[in-house]
């Protein structure tokens, strides 16, 4: 049985109070295991990004248990969370967030530099990571000289250069055309995913649904269901998500399509 990468149990996240109270997460239960690519889907404003933020410890849950690789995030201090993220989590953002004044290699080197790797060593490792995502010819380019797909691949190389065990991605294909988006997901499956690593992708891009091992459907701060599938890499416009009732916390090996 695959190692549990992360689990959320009855997690609530509220914004505001009284009449302005917004329940961004309303009793979420979810498990992520190593070796899987989990897609978190749902309409805008349903709480996907909040869930991702809580999962990786950059946002505190109002209540509930958040555990990543056996560590209770909700019991950590901010400093401990920062250190934990540094060691265990890689990030890929919708807007890439590449530093515009750094070259592609330097951008990829940033997480290594955070780990106090010397500059030259970090850039050398970064070049190797860029080669893995097919950008060995663009290592000295500034982000502004790269296409959207190339920038996202730089971001992927940056997320995996320190070999984190969990990679979280926020709408990685939102700013890309369909073909490029599918190519990026291909990179995720072929270069990033490994048996000891889990990937969680927040997306509402139905064109990439076919790349996920499981798809968690969110509505109004709740996980309505988790749908396990054989990742085909094909466009999945037609994927039908089962509206499962809470809680939906089973690991993918236990989940049966349509089960509650």
């Amino acid at each position, binding site marked *: 049985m695959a190692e549990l990468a992360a689990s959320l149990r009855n997690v609530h996240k509220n914004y505001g109070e009284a009449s302005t109270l917004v329940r961004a997460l309303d009793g979420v239960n979810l498990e992520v295991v190593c070796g899987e690519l989990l897609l978190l889907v749902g309409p805008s404003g349903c709480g996907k*990004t909040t869930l*991702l*933020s809580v999962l*990786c410890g*950059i*946002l505190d849950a109002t209540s509930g248990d958040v555990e990543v690789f056996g560590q209770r995030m909700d019991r950590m201090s901010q*400093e401990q969370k*920062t*250190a934990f*993220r*540094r*060691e265990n*989590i890689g*990030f890929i*953002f*919708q*807007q890439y*967030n590449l*530093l*515009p*004044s*750094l070259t592609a290699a*330097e951008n990829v080197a*940033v*997480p290594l*530099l*955070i780990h106090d790797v010397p*500059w030259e060593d970090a850039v050398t490792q970064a070049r190797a990571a860029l080669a893995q995502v097919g950008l060995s010819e663009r290592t000295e380019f500034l982000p502004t000289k790269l296409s959207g797909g190339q920038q996202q691949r730089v971001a992927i190389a940056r997320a995996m250069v320190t070999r984190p065990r969990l990679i979280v991605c*926020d*709408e990685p294909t*939102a700013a890309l055309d369909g073909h490029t988006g599918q190519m990026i997901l291909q990179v995720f499956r072929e270069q990033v995913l490994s048996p000891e690593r889990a990937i969680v992708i927040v997306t509402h891009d139905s064109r990439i649904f076919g790349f996920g091992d499981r798809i968690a459907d969110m509505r109004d701060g709740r996980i309505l269901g988790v749908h396990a599938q054989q990742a085909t890499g094909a466009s999945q416009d037609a994927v039908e998500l089962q509206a499962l009732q809470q809680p939906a916390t089973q690991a993918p090996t236990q989940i049966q399509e349509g089960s509650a």
Partner: protein
Amino acid sequence: MMKIAIKMLMGDRAKYITLVSSIAFVSLLFIQQGGIFCGLIGRTARPVEAVDAPIWVCDPLMRSVDDAEPMQDTDLYRVRSVPGVKWAVPLIIRVVTARLANGQYQSVRLYGLDDATLYGRPAHMLVGDTRDLLENDAVIIGQAESDKLGSPKIGDSFEINDTEARVVGIAEAPRDFLSNPFVFTTYSRALSYLPPDRKTLLYILAAPKDGVPVQTVIANIEKTTGLAAYTEDGYRWHTMGYYLKNTGIPVSIGVSLAMVFVIGTGIAGQTFYAFALQNERFFGALKAMGVSGTTLTHMILLQSLLVGLIGFGIGGGLASIFGFSAGPQSKIAFAAPWELAVIALCAVLIICLLASLASIRRVLKLEPAVVFHG
């Protein structure tokens, strides 16, 4: 990470140039205004520096070199009798009115030098010889401000108190605070230029005997005669202190320096804050990736320090160009001692620190979740 901070700073050319320019402008104004302050105050003591004597003795009520509190003529002999005094000579320094050949009146700073030794005579003669002062009606004029006397040549004359003053030499002389031309003559002739007065001796210049400390001789003179005695440096500061306390110069310059400080802090702070705002999602991304608040603070402080040092270098350089172009003989009073540079650098660093505080606060309070906001 510090290298990244530098690349972040310099990568945003427009903001980087704005920041460096604002700090350079602040540094330039600080050193330029401070230099004018030092220059103006320094000029109040130029009449003292022009003489170059080890010990200055005067009436205790004398507040500055421009004051006139005469002593008894016999005080000269009392000072000469003080233990440790090697020699003592009289000196007059007074601002008097000269009447030029065209009938115009002009204030001049009159030096009456000891007839026997001409002690206090100009060190560098441009035209003529100081010994020519022993001729009838002879005066030597300082070149600086001599245009106010009609730029006289050797042999030209003007009047002081209805008595002829004939130019026998032109010497290098400093510009003083009042911008009066310097006129040197003998002590006895200076007395003829002054209005009749019961007491006329203004200063006694003295020197200690070999091996006797100046301070010991000064203490002996004060104890024995009841007069005030200073080293040359001491009397310079006594004079400058009078102007610092009794004129509006420190307040005026201080106000402009304070405005430079406030405006500089405002401009630099605003630009720094805009820089932090613009880079918010990058700082957020760094926080999300595990960069600690301490490291981010160090990064911003480094950026601020770098801007401060580069801006100070440029501003200081421009101020130096201003100072050199003005020159020591310029009508513009400008002096930039190293202490001024240190003070200006400290002020600039404080400005940078204050300017970066808002940015640091912003970045520290920044929720890393901001990076997930598309």
